């Protein structure tokens, strides 16, 4: 499949939005660079999971992880980690899919910007999917176990977001180890808990985020991203103990 790449200036552009609705983008050369990229295949997958029930959101994420994991990760990373590529693909090849699945795009340019032309960073659902699918497919061979880990990501999305947001944690092994520890020890709901018993921690303090914050503070004296899982687990429990009574949890470490 050949995809022409958009040139700068298409974002927050009312005319571009109207042309998208009228299906007249592709015929207008002004919107494109001279560059073209090729990909073998580009199956549809959910690209926006906000404003859904928890169950729906989980299903959409799993579908996205599986499709991206199976079909989008063989290209050079300079392609599948590139905002310009994804925006070009969506606008040129996915228009019908987008209008069908996310009809709110038709309502306003702000919905269009927020769903289709969202910046390609940790807040973008495609970015979350690509990075999660890369990490899990690289570290897990077996299909069923991969699916399990995708579920662990969705069940601990707040923690996952926090890890891929900060440069120091954005590392395959660290993300995978933390998810494994949380999964093995059944800590998911505890880590999501809002800390109401302290008032010195800023807005919306959650147990899981605070534990990661401790890792951040201790770096590089503790070089956590490079630790093996068992070493990491010990320190994880130590930091967890700063916020909750670990003895009461009844988890065996």
């Amino acid at each position, binding site marked *: 499949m*050949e995809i022409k790449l958009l040139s700068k200036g298409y974002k927050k552009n009312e005319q571009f939005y109207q042309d998208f609705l009228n299906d007249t983008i592709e015929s207008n050369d002004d919107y494109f660079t001279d560059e073209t990229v090729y990909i073998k295949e580009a199956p549809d997958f959910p690209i926006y999971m906000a404003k859904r029930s928890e169950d729906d959101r989980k299903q959409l994420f799993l579908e996205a992880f599986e499709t991206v994991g199976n079909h989008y990760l063989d290209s*050079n*990373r*300079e392609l599948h*980690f590139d905002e310009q590529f994804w925006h070009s693909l969506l606008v040129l090849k996915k228009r019908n899919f987008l209008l069908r699945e996310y009809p709110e795009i038709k309502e306003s340019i702000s919905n269009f910007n927020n769903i289709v032309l969202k910046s390609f960073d940790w807040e973008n659902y495609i970015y979350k999917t690509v990075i999660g699918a890369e990490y899990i497919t690289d570290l897990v061979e077996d299909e069923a176990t991969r699916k399990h880990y995708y579920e662990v990501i969705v069940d601990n999305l707040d923690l996952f977001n926090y890890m891929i947001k900060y440069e120091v944690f954005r*590392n395959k092994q660290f993300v995978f180890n933390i998810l494994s520890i949380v999964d093995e020890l059944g800590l998911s709901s505890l880590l999501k808990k809002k800390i109401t018993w302290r008032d010195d921690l800023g807005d919306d303090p959650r147990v899981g985020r605070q534990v990661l914050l401790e890792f951040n503070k201790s770096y*590089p004296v503790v*070089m956590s991203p*490079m*630790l093996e899982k068992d070493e990491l687990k010990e320190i994880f429990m130590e930091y967890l103990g700063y916020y909750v009574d670990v003895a009461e949890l009844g988890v065996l470490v």
Partner: protein
Amino acid sequence: MIYKKDANFPYPVLTNTSNSYESGGFTLNVDLKENTDTYRFDIEYEVESAFLEQLLARKQAQLFLIIQSKDNKFFRLQPDERAIEIAKSRLSINTRTSIQMSIQATTDISFRDNEDINDFYREFKDDIIVPKHALLGFSNTVIFEGSSTKPFDLFERKIDATLKSDIKVELGSETIVIHYKNEDLQFAGMPMSGTLNNPYIYMGLQKALHRFATNPDYGDDGHVYLDDVELPTDQLDAKLYRLMKAKMVYELDVDSLDEVIYKISDRVIEKYATAVKGLEASGD
């Protein structure tokens, strides 16, 4: 994470900018190579502290190579390891890529026998114990911004109406020249016309590499070991030589030219096939 400036450490750390070690610094050099599917980083480094070298030899400390672009990648380096390969599907270097080495303690380390540190720390070195997992040193940062090896500066296309054939592939003094009898043969005006010419690129590379492989100045019996060959004075051969070296081709043989073309040509045939399928799908 990569250190750009000196962080404050409560103990001596070996770097090129701090003076806590008197013995020297921690230097890193990296040479980037690539072929169609892979980047390879050839590394050279020097840890200028006998104390830290000994910790590494005794496995009380571990060397890491850190590559940071879209995310962080860590590699545990064995003492004799001098190269890291990464698939292009897992690393992009078109955005800024930073590379650094670090040394991490694998156990609590007493600095009692550390004779490399400066006078200030030496006075109380008996009391310095650096905890397990802590950073002991980090190197300079090597930065790459995009790769530079473009294969197609090798080619020229010309139209020659007097040609006695439709196409003629000629090895010029600096380039491989593809002569066409007329513009139509270049698919001019068609979508993807550039890519549709890839089979001629392939033919040109075959011809040029065959001449290279059979040149008695470079090797014997159609076999060349590139490491044994000096940079050729022929300018076309020099371009091919540089390109092959950059793409990690070490040997050239008349019987394996196709494999070499695959490594150096950035998917010419795959792109061609995709273009043809695209034309078929659009019904032209």
